[in-house]
């Protein structure tokens, strides 16, 4: 039997995208991160190129995340109130990138000014050498005023800025265009909407190669199967030549997995589910490795042990 007979022949591939910029490239990063380039489904090296391994971005906030799970508190409690120390710790934990969520800009969570937030971005850039993903607080109006300022102070750094959504993408795209950053889109777990958003953004003048996409990431047990299938369909479409879905995929799993009841509920309330810390960590890790099978390129995560498990899995499957 000849295994060649079942090699799929794809005509497309995922864009290869580099984030961050070193001194020579006009930035201050000590290294850049390149993702994408996949020319087949995950880990089927026998039939196509996949030269860039999936990487981990560790999520940090500019304000202490008081509502984060006790299991996460245990891992980060000493750095929660200091984004610089937190970023450094994230690098120790193996972060290939840092995802800085500017939560403190939220009008209900301190309402920091764009300038105050820009200072946090500058401090984090100064403290670590890995590339940065910066996303807003989630309040559309506020984010529209934050992102242009962030894009300007970090000019040259080749940031990934997010999240651009169907009903709110113009100002973030404009900011990225002016200062040469990349844009992260957020979909609604709907392949057609993802495609449409990518088209709208390229129509504003941002090259398709400067877009990454989060199709809308659900946690294990909380809609994971929707994300999984949207990602598989999108990847197959892209491999079959659809340029509008050829963006590297970012999955924001930490945020989702750590809200799951299985990650939150103490063992005394759910004796049926066993030790909370063990199941919570595995909840994040398995959410991440599952979506890895569906084609993720950047995994945004929180717990150091879950990150270790994810990276192990990537390495094992790429060996």
């Amino acid at each position, binding site marked *: 039997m000849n295994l060649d007979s079942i090699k799929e022949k794809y005509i497309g591939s995922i864009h290869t995208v580099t984030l961050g910029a070193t001194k020579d490239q006009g930035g201050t990063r000590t290294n850049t991160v390149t993702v994408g380039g996949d020319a087949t489904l995950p880990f089927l090296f026998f039939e196509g190129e996949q030269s860039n391994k999936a990487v981990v971005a560790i999520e940090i906030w500019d304000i202490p995340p008081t509502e984060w799970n006790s299991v996460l508190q245990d891992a980060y409690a000493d750095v929660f109130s200091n984004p610089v120390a937190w970023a450094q710790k994230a690098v120790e934990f193996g972060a290939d990138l840092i995802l800085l969520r500017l939560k403190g800009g939220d009008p209900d969570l301190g309402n920091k000014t764009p300038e105050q937030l820009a200072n946090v971005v500058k401090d984090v850039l100064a403290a670590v050498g890995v590339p940065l993903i910066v996303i807003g607080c989630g309040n559309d109006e506020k984010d529209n005023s934050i992102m242009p300022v962030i894009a300007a102070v970090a000019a040259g750094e080749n940031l990934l800025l997010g999240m651009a959504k169907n009903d709110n993408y113009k100002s973030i795209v404009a900011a990225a265009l002016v200062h040469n950053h990349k844009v992260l889109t957020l979909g*609604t777990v709907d392949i057609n909407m993802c495609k449409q958003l990518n088209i709208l953004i390229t129509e504003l003048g941002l090259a398709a190669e400067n877009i990454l996409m989060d199709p809308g990431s659900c946690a294990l047990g909380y809609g994971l*199967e929707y994300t999984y299938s949207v990602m598989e369909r999108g990847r197959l479409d892209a491999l079959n030549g659809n340029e509008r879905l050829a963006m590297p995929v970012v999955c924001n799993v930490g945020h989702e997995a750590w809200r799951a009841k299985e990650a939150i509920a103490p063992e005394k309330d759910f004796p049926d589910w066993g*030790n909370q810390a063990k199941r919570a960590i595995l909840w994040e890790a398995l959410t991440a490795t599952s979506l890895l099978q569906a084609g993720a390129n950047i995994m945004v995560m929180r717990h150091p042990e879950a990150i270790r498990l994810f990276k192990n899995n990537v390495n094992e499957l790429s060996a």
Partner: protein
Amino acid sequence: MALTGLDIFKQLPKTNCKDCGMSTCLAFAMALAKGSTELDLCPHVSESAKKFLDIASAPPIRSVIVGVGPNQLTLGGETVLFRHDKTFINQTAIVIKISDTLAPDELDEKIRNINGLSMKRMGQRIGVNAIAITNCSQKPETFKAVVDIVAARAKNLNLILLVENAIALEAVLPGIAAQKPLVGSATANNWQAMVALAKRYAVPLIIKGNGLNDTAALVEKVASEYKELVIDTGMRNTAKVLVALTNIRRLALKKKFRPFGFPTIAFTTAEDPNDEIIQAGVFVAKYASIVILKADEKPYVLPLLTFRMNLYTDPQKPIAVEANLYEIGAVTPESPVYVCTNFSLTYYAVEGEVLNSKIPGYIIAVDTEGTSVLTAWASGRFDAQTITDFVQKSGIAEKVSHRTLVIPGYVAVISGKLQEKSGWNVIVGPQEAVGIPAFAKAYYTKDA
């Protein structure tokens, strides 16, 4: 390879008698090739042609049954490579492995533990499916004794007997065959004896090869004699197993390559239980019909079982509960009334927390065609009008003396309009269901 219409035509009587309802034998052959008719409709095919065509028209991946009774397993029978193409059908069996070298008290403890690996999640009970017993002792009598103990004490679980020594297998089968354990492995060395035993006792058999080509050759030999088979490629490296299982599935479905038209089995190798679950997750995602692992603690097994459940839900229909008025606990006319959607995930999240609050309450699960709160809201199935209509239909007005509805925090924006339309007072509850107990205590204990 799949048969073409012409291949089939060659086997038919070519009399064009029309008894099959088609105008010609050729038309019937074409319809058969497409799968739109059945061979039985032609009363004139010869026995030999029937045998040939039956084999050729069998489903691309055979379904194999393990066990008996309500918990029996159906393995294989899959028809697609991606769940979005239709749906995955028979869930990967999650199986915990134990050795026959365990001391009696360890064995006892293990069995009790594995029996306990059944958990409730989102209104469904999920659990491991079987215990696999290995013959590490190498002694037939020890193996038999342990198998008998497990069979007697783990009555809700199926059995897998991992033994390559035909003599040891022969020692246990007479007593246990009626429970239809999966046995194996049959290898290049022992297959004649193993197949003879499997046939005699009518139990499904694992065929273990050494890599894809070797496995295909071995299965081909065995399958001419016996077809209740499960394939083990013999590979144990995660990356290689992923590729092998993908190729097996592709060859079976796209090329109808018969030697791979059977369920498959994969084994974890990692020592650390966390790593083991991650490894098992790869096999669940990529086509294993059975995964054998050692990790047997609830917090490890629960995520894996949940992943399996997610992957095997039918993408064509969201899991919904009946849209209805539900009573949680010993409700009274003063009990709170919560409004949510009839998406299973949503409903059970809310139900669980209302129970947790220890304050009995009503839940109105509005018909949103099984979609979540925000999905339903965004698509117009959970707005002031639809909720008002459903509340009126639900009969809640006759059950409670108050006129207050609690709605999910995520749809706070509809509260004014809902109040206006329904005439009920509307309280915006917390965003996440976890917030319900604290919320209920704050709002409802003083009046109760």
